[in-house]
């Protein structure tokens, strides 16, 4: 049975699809009936995501979106127009400001902000977005609602995405294209493993969430399906907060 939340008949592009949130978004989009175009830099892990996609007709494209060339390689594989895009590519780095260097600034902005902004700009300029399409960007509570020690640059990149989304939502409204962000709290992803934050500290941190746990990547996938679906055709410029209640305190 096709519900209002179904993505049947929609072609959805998902970046950062080789792991974590991007992978979960791709799997949930396919489960909701979408035809997915997934992209990332790591072939082996992207193939794993691809193999897990339900249904037929999906496509995977290896691309490094940190350069215009990479974006154009990706877009050359998109022949028609797409009905939605979820920009998930991102990295987390924990470094206090006094130890950050120019290259940290460039790397984080390239991966977390510029790659998504550049991709959406090119999708618009090359007229690859269907009228009524949905653009979803993965932001964070860090940089938009709160911050964490060692997260100044990371937060700055996520704040940049929020700013970009608001103005772009206005500019694309004549084509009924919606632009929304998802604002997650901490999500259990491989980004957390091997980080500077210890496992005991993480357990303590979880207790600061009123719902007493971190989010699952799938939960960002469900929200993405919602924002991509026809259920949200009148939603644009929204920042959808999914944080287990963290920012209530």
């Amino acid at each position: 049975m096709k519900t209002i939340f179904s993505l049947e008949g929609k072609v959805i592009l998902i970046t950062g699809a080789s792991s974590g949130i991007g992978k979960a978004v791709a799997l949930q989009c396919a489960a909701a009936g979408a035809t997915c175009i997934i992209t990332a830099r790591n072939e082996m892990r992207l193939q794993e995501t691809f193999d897990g996609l339900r249904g037929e007709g999906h496509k995977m494209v290896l691309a490094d979106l940190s350069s215009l060339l990479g974006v154009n390689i990706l877009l050359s594989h998109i022949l028609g127009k797409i009905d939605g895009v979820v920009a998930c590519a991102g990295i987390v780095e924990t470094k206090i400001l006094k130890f950050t260097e120019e290259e940290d600034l460039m790397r984080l902005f390239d991966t977390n902000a510029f790659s998504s902004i550049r991709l959406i700009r090119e999708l618009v300029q090359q007229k690859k977005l269907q009228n009524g399409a949905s653009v979803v960007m993965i932001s964070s509570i860090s940089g938009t609602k709160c911050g964490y020690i060692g997260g100044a640059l990371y937060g700055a990149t996520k704040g940049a995405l929020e700013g970009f989304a608001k103005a772009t939502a206005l500019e694309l409204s004549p084509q009924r294209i919606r632009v929304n962000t998802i604002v997650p709290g901490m999500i259990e992803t491989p980004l957390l493993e091997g980080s500077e934050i210890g496992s005991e500290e993480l357990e303590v941190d979880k207790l600061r969430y009123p719902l007493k746990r971190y989010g699952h990547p799938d939960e960002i996938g469900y929200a993405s399906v919602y924002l991509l679906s026809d259920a949200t055709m009148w939603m644009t410029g929204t920042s959808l907060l999914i944080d287990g209640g963290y920012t209530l305190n």
Partner: protein
Amino acid sequence: MEIKQFIADFADQFDETELNEFQPKTEFRELEEWSSLAGLAILNMIGKKYGVKISASEIKGIDTIEALYNLVLSKK
């Protein structure tokens, strides 16, 4: 690489603690000024000055500045 320099780099991450409190056998978590921010500063300092990445789980069983120095040496 000498422990004297490492201790100086370690001490440089603190503002209030007297320099003579930083000795090889100093149990750094017992310092009044110790905090999660100081801990992150130490890990970042080791990454930048010594080119060694140490995760939070590796530093878990380390109590003294000397033991931390030896861990850095072993990873260089």
